[in-house]
Structures are given as C-alpha cells and as structure tokens.
C-alpha cells in the first residue's frame, strides 16, 4: 500500500496504526508560531471500534490500509461463519462472529449490507439502516390502546429485543432503525 503524508490526511482515509487498520475521523493542523507543525488526528480502530487520538509531526507518513467498503448480500450462516456475496461477481466471503458483531441481531437473508474488507477478508459488517422483522415473543397486545403511547419489549425473529407499542402482537412485522435500535412503525401485511 502507498504511504500517506500528514498533508494528505483527511477524514475517511484508512491507515495502518500499530498494526491495525484505522480510519481518520478528524485531522487538525496545529502549529505554535515559533514551533514545529503537527497533525492532531482522531482515528477509529476498525478492528476494535475504539477511537484513539494521535499527534504526528508534519510531513511524517503512515502506511495506507488495504480497506474497502462494499455492498454485499447476506446469504446464510452455518454456525461458524456468516456468508456474504458480491452482487456483481457472485464472489462469496465468510465473516467471523467478531466481524459481524452487532449486525448479527438484525440480519435476515437477502439483506444488503456494507461489508468492510481488510486485506480481502471481512473486517466489519454494517446492516441496512432499516430492517423489517417479525415479532416472535411479546406480551399479548392490548387492542384499542393505540393512543396511549406506552411500550413493551418484543423479541424479533433475529433475536434482537426492541421496545414496541402495547397494541402489537406476536406475528406482527415491525420496521426498526438499526442505528438506534428504535421501533419505526408497523408494517401492514
């Protein structure tokens, strides 16, 4: 991979730091009037998700990370791995549980996800922003209580638990925002 100098740093650039791929979140040019210039950088470690702050001398360079984001279709899981497919080439990639991470509880087969590949292997998976999933377990619905605005926990077919309005029942399909885990609405059959 190419090396990137601090003057090429910009948010979104993927770099190697201490052996891990990182993505730049923020880069600020700092220079005391009579001193050396430096770059103060906030980076997200793409393996751990942790955000770190580092300061580099101006002109210093870091190795780029072989990281790309790609839309892929989720196919299935076999207990050990989760399988994703590139829509154009039909090439399949197997992701570990660690790579799938939080996305696990939202994934249904056929969903299009953003898979981050590092050196060609899935590093992380971002589920679609909105998913529609069936409720498999919740307290019985209270008919006519639609205006009250109370809520109760409901377990979805993928295993996620979200708060839903009281009138919903097992078997209902709901729309959920995966970024916040919040109920967005009921999906009419």
């Amino acid at each position, binding site marked *: 991979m190419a090396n990137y100098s601090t*003057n090429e740093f910009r948010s979104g650039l993927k770099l190697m730091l201490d052996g891990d791929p990182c993505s730049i979140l923020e880069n*600020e*040019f*700092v*220079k*005391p*009037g*009579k*001193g*050396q*210039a*430096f770059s*103060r950088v906030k980076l997200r470690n793409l393996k751990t998700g942790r955000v770190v702050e*580092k*300061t*580099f*001398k*101006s002109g*210093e360079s870091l190795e780029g990370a072989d990281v790309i984001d790609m839309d892929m279709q989720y196919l299935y899981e076999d207990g050990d791995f989760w399988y994703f497919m590139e829509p154009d080439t039909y090439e399949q990639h197997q992701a570990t549980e660690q790579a799938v991470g939080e996305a696990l509880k939202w994934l249904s087969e056929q969903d299009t996800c953003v898979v981050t590949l590092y050196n060609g292997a899935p590093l992380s998976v971002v589920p679609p922003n909105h998913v529609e999933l069936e409720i498999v377990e919740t307290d019985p619905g209270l008919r006519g209580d639609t205006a009250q605005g109370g809520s109760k926990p409901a377990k979805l077919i993928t295993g996620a638990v979200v708060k839903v309005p009281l009138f919903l029942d097992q078997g209902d399909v709901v729309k959920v925002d995966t970024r916040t885990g919040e109920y967005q609405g009921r999906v009419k059959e």
Partner: protein
Amino acid sequence: MADQWQPGITTSSLRYRSELLQKLRNFFYQRQVIEVDVPVLARSTVTDSNVESIKSEVSGGSGYLQTSPEYFMKRLLAAGCDDIFCLGKAFRDAESGRRHNPEFTILEWYRCGWNEHQLMDEVAELITQLTDLSAQEGLSVTKRSYGECFQSVLGVDPHSAELSSLRQLAVTVGSQSWAQESRANCLDLLFSLAVEPQLSDGLVFIYDYPACQAALAQTHLNTHNQLVSRRFEVFFNKMELANGYMELTDAEQQRQRFGKDCDQRRASNKPELAIDEKLMAALDHGLPPCAGVALGVDRLLMQLQGATSIDQVMAFSWPRC
C-alpha cells in the same frame, strides 16, 4: 472551484474587521507610535527551521514573501526610528487550517527602552480596549511564567527536566514519533496539547520561555536561577495570539543562532537559506534596547467575534483564492 467565488466573511463581519483595523491604528497614533509600511517581498528571509517562506522570482533573481515585518522594522530601529508599528500582510508556506492561512494580517510593534513586561501591559491595554468596545464583559488578564504553568499541568519542570523524560511524556501525549525529538519540539508538543487546553479564558500572558526557544529574544536567569528566554506569548481564550521578545541586540549571539537554524534546516532536509546580511549589518551598527511583539489580527478577530474558523473573519481565505 466556481462555487467558492463568494467571500467567507459576512458583510457585517467585514465591517467589524474594517472598524478593528481603524481602532488598532488609532491606538498607536494616539500614543505617538509611527506606522511603517515595510516591504513584504525581499531578497532574503528568516532562517528559522519551523517557518517556511514562499519563494518567488523577481527580475530573474530569488525573492521571498516575508513571514513577518520584523527584519525590516529592526533595520528601521537601528537607523534611528523610535517606536514603530506595522499593520500589514505576512506569508507562511504550508500553514493552512482552522487557525492558519498562508497569507494573514499581522500587527507588530516595537517600544524602545521598554522591557517585555511593560510591553505585555500594553498588549493587555490594547485588547481590553477592543473588548470593551465589543461589549464583552470583564476580560480577565493573567500573567504566568512558562515554568510554573507547565509544571502545574504536567508535574515536570520544563527548564531542568532531562530530555529523556520530556520525550517520554511527548510519546504519551503525542505518539511514538516523538521518541527522538529535540527538547524544543517536545516542549512545543506538550505545551500545545496538554497545557494550552488548561489555560483560563480571557488573556493569558506566558513569559520566560525555555532558553532553547529563545529565537530572537534575550536570555536571563529567572528567580530559580535557571537560564530562560525573555520571550512571551499571549493566549486569548486558549488560542495563541501574539509572541513578543525583549529583543536580542547582541549581533554575535544572533549570528550564532541563525547559524544553528541553518544547521537544523540542513539536518531536516529543508531548503537552505542565506542569513539576512542587511539585518546583520544593522545589528552590527546597533539595535537600541527595545521590546517587540507580533499579533495575529485574524485570530484576534476570531476571538472577538467567536468565529470557529479563520475563513469566517477574512474576505478570501486560501481555499477561496
């Protein structure tokens, strides 16, 4: 880009800027300080290894856009001008960001027979007058020595600490790339990243900078008998605003420091530059005892107006040029 034809500043801020420039001039005219408009383009420039000049071609020879009016002003002082000020443009290459623009407006002035503490008081008077006019309430003004301030945050005496312990601190605060840095560079990193955010709001004067960061200031012994430079910096709401010196008048010492600059440039593969011999000749002739300070006018505007980017206080910042 075509969509950047517009100025970064609003018309009301542009008016504010115009009023500020006038107030700055009035302050000095009232005090019988003479305005000088020295060249921004010259055959030589600063040798400081941390300041890059923009090179140009003039009538077939090299020219440099000046990084401050300092050398020309010192030549005027040596020629017998008394107190002088300059309000104009200065240029520094490779400096661009939220607080930096390669071309900026600088206010620099010299007071003959004054020391750095008298000059700090005058800086405080100037800024206090401006903030009174901009209806900011009770500007706080504090004055602290570099050593005390640094030690209160980092628990280390910056003047006497071993280089190895400063490097260790710098690695913790910055990154591994500071493990082999010079004393001056480690101190700069630590002060910028660890100390500056802890400064109080309002005006903070930091004086008696480390001897290794003297630049063009005299050195003396502080109350703890440590060699320090008679240099000060002014911070306005934690942002570096101005830099001043009890000016070094010893030509021989100055030549040695410039020589060190040149060595440093060579060591870090930066373009080599010749020492400004006209300035040296003026120093040989004799610079009167004086204190001088340079202040970033755009940054002053940022603080007076609560702007978050220098682009909001100048008509056209570099990305728009």
